């Protein structure tokens, strides 16, 4: 996508927002008298104040509850584990311990060192007096392999042909190298000839078409996708149960006697959103601190941008879906009713989550996946994944954000209407056709 197209998209989005906003403001309201200008200003101030009050209550209630504390702790531990354990494992698996039986040719050490360097392994070589002593060290896991001479490599367990771990690779490569050295020696080549043979340059590869672009798998993206899904599910569940609790406990009638429906729902979205942002920031900060402490690869390259982008899209995704869940909550009085309403609405969310995980794992983004990055219900997973794959630039990224904001505005209008018409209907699940009638 070109920069000019991205700019055109942003401008188009802004025009749509302006038009919808003007139409919405012109719409007459049944319960509102004509207000003077000063009344309107006072009303606007009161609106903000009420929304903040509702938001503050939501924040206090969440902070008092155990759910937030426990979930934050569990997620932080999981994130730290996901960063620290692979790093520790990678440090452990990058080491290989070789025992050479006394009397073996000295060239073995050089061959082993060259093989280890090629695989990025740290090699530690020790000498054992006999083959039996070497086998004993293998049995007690003091060494990884024993070499007696150019003809024999002994390991505790034969590496499987499908085992791609560096240690297994080292055993196979060292065996090949020793075999080659033995063959060279048997052929009677001079050291110079043997060296030329060992360092032969490959021939040029000429391709008729360019190779498919394949990016490396980005673990940061995968962590971001999983975190976004887990956190978003939690926050939207809070919205759903919060709205449902107000409806089923009938407190909604007391609230709506003094507060407008839109103020109430906006306060709830804002309050839970503030908690979500704080929790998300805390988790990302924890991830960065943990990564910095253990020297994890998630701090390298564009990984910090991927994390920042995941956090941004977590917030954008939350705001988008919170309206959907609030509307669903207003139509139900029990959790089973709410779940059956919510499920079809969250199908795009689940599809996008699975698709994003698969794309981040494969390293290849299909055309369809790129299109989904501009579709508000799926952009929250698709766009950060594209960032992780270096498959998107700033312009298209901002265009996607703008489209998402427009989509959120439109979905909020629909959800607010549903909420207003459904929240005071009690005595069972509200059906879609009921929403066409006045309350």
């Amino acid at each position, binding site marked *: 996508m070109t920069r000019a197209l991205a700019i055109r998209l942003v401008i188009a989005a802004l025009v749509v927002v302006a038009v919808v906003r003007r139409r919405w403001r012109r719409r007459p309201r*049944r*319960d*509102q*008298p004509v207000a003077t200008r000063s009344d309107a200003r006072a*009303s606007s101030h*009161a609106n903000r104040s*009420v929304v903040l*009050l*509702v938001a503050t*209550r939501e924040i*206090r*209630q969440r902070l008092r509850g155990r759910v937030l504390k426990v979930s934050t702790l569990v997620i932080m531990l999981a994130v730290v584990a996901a960063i620290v354990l692979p790093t520790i494992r990678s440090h452990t698996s990058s080491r290989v311990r070789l025992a050479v039986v006394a009397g073996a040719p000295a060239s073995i050490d050089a061959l082993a060192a060259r093989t280890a360097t090629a695989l990025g392994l740290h090699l530690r070589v020790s000498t054992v007096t006999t083959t039996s002593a070497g086998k004993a060290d293998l049995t007690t896991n003091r060494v990884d392999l024993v070499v007696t001479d150019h003809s024999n490599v002994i390991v505790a367990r034969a590496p499987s042909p499908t085992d791609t771990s560096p240690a297994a690779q080292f055993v196979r490569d060292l065996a090949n190298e020793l075999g080659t050295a033995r063959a060279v020696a048997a052929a009677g080549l001079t050291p110079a000839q043997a060296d030329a043979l060992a360092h032969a340059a490959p021939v040029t590869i000429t391709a008729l078409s360019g190779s498919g672009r394949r990016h490396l798998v980005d673990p940061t993206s995968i962590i971001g996708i999983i975190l976004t899904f887990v956190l978003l599910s939690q926050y939207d569940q809070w919205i759903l149960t919060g709205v449902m*609790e*107000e409806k089923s*406990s*009938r*407190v*909604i*009638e*007391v*609230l*709506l*006697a*003094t*507060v*407008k429906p839109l103020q109430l729902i906006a306060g709830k979205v804002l309050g839970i959103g503030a908690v979500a942002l704080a929790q998300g920031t805390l988790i990302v900060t924890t991830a960065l601190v943990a990564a910095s402490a253990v020297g994890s690869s998630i701090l390298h390259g564009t990984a910090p941008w991927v994390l920042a982008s995941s956090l941004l899209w977590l917030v954008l995704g939350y705001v988008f879906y919170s309206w959907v869940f609030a509307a669903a909550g207003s139509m139900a009085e029990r959790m089973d009713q709410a779940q059956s309403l919510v499920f079809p609405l969250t199908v795009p969310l689940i599809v996008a989550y699975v698709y994003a995980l698969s794309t981040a794992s494969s390293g290849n983004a299909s055309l369809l996946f790129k299109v989904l990055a501009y579709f508000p219900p799926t952009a929250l997973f698709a766009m950060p994944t594209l960032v992780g794959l270096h498959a998107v630039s700033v312009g298209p990224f901002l265009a996607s954000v703008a489209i998402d904001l427009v989509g959120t505005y439109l979905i909020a209008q629909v959800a607010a209407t549903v909420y207003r018409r459904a929240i*005071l209907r*009690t005595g069972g699940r509200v059906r879609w056709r009921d929403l066409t009638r*006045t*309350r």
Partner: protein
Amino acid sequence: MVTSGLVLSGLRRRFGDLVALRDLSFDVAGGVVTGFLGPNGAGKTTTMRAVFGLTDLDGGSITWNGRPVDATVRQRFGYMPEERGLYPTMRVGDQVEYLGQLHGLSSLDARRSTQQWLERLGIADRAQDRVEDLSHGNQQRVQLASALVHEPDLLVLDEPLAGLDPTGIDDIGAVLVEQARLGRGVLFSSHQLDQVEDLCEQVVIIDHGQLVVRGTVDELASAGPPRWRVRVDGDRDGSWAASLPGVTVSEVRGGEVRLVLDPGTDSSAVLAAASRVGRVTEFSLQRRRMSEVFREAVR
């Protein structure tokens, strides 16, 4: 035309085929406790919800001191809905304070007023408890405190006495009367007609969505034919009076028979009939009770 206080004019509301309100008009003056009566399904709750914009009207208007009731005006109203509405897991004090703030009180004023009302209603020691841990009666008190915390100009209470023990009824009744004495309008619905008679100065009775009776308790009690209250030893059902010509049994309660005599019917003949059943311990002329006013209005 009355313009002060709450004025409901020509309210109309239909739910499908059911007409809930049909040209209902009445007013609620400040400084007066007004009882709002009617059989189940008469439209009382719909009317109260309409005052708070909780149900849409097909027609009619509602004003407060001559101004259409909108969100700003409603800030000065207190409401207690029929189905009690409180956050079950929120602490009592926090809940009342929050609702006070939603009605425009500052945080400090809301806290101060909450403390005062919880003390006044005898639940100050439960301020830190969750609402769901309270008894029904105490939850009712919390609900009333929530309606009163912002010192509203008008209180609208849907069945505030339902399910309360006599002490609870006395406490809440005293608060309603006290609020009216402070010049506030109080409109409450109830099926406990004796309490209505004790607490209210004015009564509005509706049936099938329309006004059937309206007036002060004194006016309504004095209007219509007087009642003869008769007590006869050993008589519990007043069956002896049912067959007397020109006599209608208005009410039988606790051994007391209340009779309405047609014009021209001789009361001494009734007394003689009662004496034939047993020793007459009471035979006096009484005003109409509210229960009798109600029955005769919605018959």
